[in-house]
């Protein structure tokens, strides 16, 4: 594999755009990434476009708007990992030498569903019986709290941290800090989750331009190298599963670190999939940022806050930046690239050289998650 770098990123602020169609959500992010890369759009040789619920041919609809058509466009659906999976395909395509420059898009419009929990496929046995994403994560939280004697206020502290970060991010959907009492006092969604421990429903788009290392060096002095690009699926298990250990992420993290030749101690900043408060604690442990059962203590120590040892979700994460599901993976990369370039303003992680992104999801029976894609970047 040849080396692959990120030469441009762009996104629209996540939020609610009920009157904007998905093509018009997407193209401004693409245009921003092209501008950021400083290239002509026609240098893009292929497009990998991720959306979970956007419908058919979303990549074509977006690219048609800006007159960049007649090239290979691949539409990727992998639930919450849709655009991170699209990124993995783009990295393979450039790394293999087939293309020099490709575009990755993540886009989603969830307001079209009119609110409520994320619609899941009723053909699935557990979904048909009433399973939803908040319910699934809530059961993980209940078991984790039972096994490790964690209190509701310790879970709620995740939302307080990430909303504080989101207040510093102009691209975040939720830009107001919240107190622990406000989090715990918001209405109950699925015990132990109150509303402010659940990612908001929203719309958004993000885009990434990849180039071979050789081409990237010609185009800019500060390309961000892709150190590892990993995609895996969950393992189907019909029986017992330890819901406090996200197997797909534990395995994915180990394989990603091996590919990069790095370990958790080498990561300066990370964007992880905090769809609900419990998730961030589980992922601290899955990535080895702390031992099992120590997630709440790591958070309380301040290590994962801005200014701490390993700031997690400086963008505000899914809880504050928002979670237009198919756009999330690409938007995480936008944040990490900005962090590694030193462009993150008041939420800048000082001296960050190595960053990690992690998007996982897909609620289907027998899997802890359907998909998980992890990337490591280095300046």
């Amino acid at each position, binding site marked *: 594999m040849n080396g692959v770098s990120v030469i441009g990123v762009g996104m629209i602020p996540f939020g609610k755009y009920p009157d904007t169609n998905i093509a018009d959500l997407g193209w401004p992010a693409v245009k921003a990434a092209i501008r950021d890369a400083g290239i002509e759009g026609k240098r893009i040789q292929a497009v990998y476009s991720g959306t979970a619920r956007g419908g058919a041919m979303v990549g074509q609809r977006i690219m048609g708007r800006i007159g960049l058509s007649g090239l290979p466009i691949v539409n990727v659906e992998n639930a919450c990992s849709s655009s991170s999976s699209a990124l993995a395909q783009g990295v393979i395509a450039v790394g293999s030498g087939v293309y020099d420059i490709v575009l990755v898009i993540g886009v989603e419009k969830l307001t079209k569903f009119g609110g409520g929990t994320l619609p899941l496929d009723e053909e699935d046995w557990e979904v048909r019986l009433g*399973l939803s994403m908040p319910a699934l994560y809530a059961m993980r939280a209940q*078991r984790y709290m039972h096994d490790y004697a964690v209190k509701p206020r310790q879970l709620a502290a995740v939302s307080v941290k990430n909303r504080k970060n989101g207040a510093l991010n102009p691209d975040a959907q939720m830009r107001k800090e919240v107190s622990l009492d406000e989090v715990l006092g918001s209405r109950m969604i699925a*015990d132990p989750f109150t509303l402010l421990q659940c990612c908001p429903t929203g719309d958004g788009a993000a885009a990434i331009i990849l180039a071979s290392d050789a081409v990237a060096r010609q185009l800019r002095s500060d390309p961000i190298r892709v150190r590892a690009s990993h995609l895996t699926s969950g393992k189907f298990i019909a029986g017992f599963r330890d819901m406090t250990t996200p197997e797909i992420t534990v395995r994915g993290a180990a394989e990603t670190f091996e590919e990069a030749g790095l370990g958790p101690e080498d990561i300066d900043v990370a964007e992880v999939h905090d769809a609900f408060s419990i998730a961030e604690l589980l992922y601290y442990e899955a990535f080895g940022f702390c031992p099992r059962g120590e997630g709440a203590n790591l958070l309380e120590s301040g290590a994962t806050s801005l200014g701490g040892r390993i700031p997690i979700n400086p963008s505000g994460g899914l809880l504050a930046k928002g979670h237009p599901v198919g756009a999330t993976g690409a938007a995480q990369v936008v944040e990490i690239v900005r962090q590694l370039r030193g462009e993150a303003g008041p939420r800048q992680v000082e001296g960050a050289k190595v960053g990690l992104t992690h998007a996982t999801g897909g609620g289907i029976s027998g899997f802890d998650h359907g998909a998980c894609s992890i990337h490591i970047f280095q300046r």
Partner: protein
Amino acid sequence: MGIMAVEAIKKTSATRLCDDAVSIGADGRAVLIGGMCRDCGNQTFPRAPVCCVCMSETIGEQPMPRIGTLYAFSTVHVAAKKWNKPMCIGYVDLPNGARVFTHLAGATLAIGDAVEPHIGIVGEDENGAIESFVFRKVGS
């Protein structure tokens, strides 16, 4: 229970949500019906048309053990309109290795409780009441 016991189970109409995954046994109690692979013996709930271990398509109906252990549960307040709310849902582990996603009932549930299936109403849609298996604490 062995294969013979299956024949003693009388099908009930009170299973609209979960089709043939639950029946009423000769003793009048609810019994979950899963699958057992005739080739490798793997047992699952619900029954699938193909074995996830050996790809055999010879999957017989298999009554599941009645009593399981509550692994995790949550009381859910926001869900699709059709469900009675709040609704309590959880995972129950059966001694044959199967894990069952289920509705739950009862005021004093705790992780680790021994629970068993009943038939209950869990919601309502345009076709009327939605019935499913509902696990309750044993003896409650």
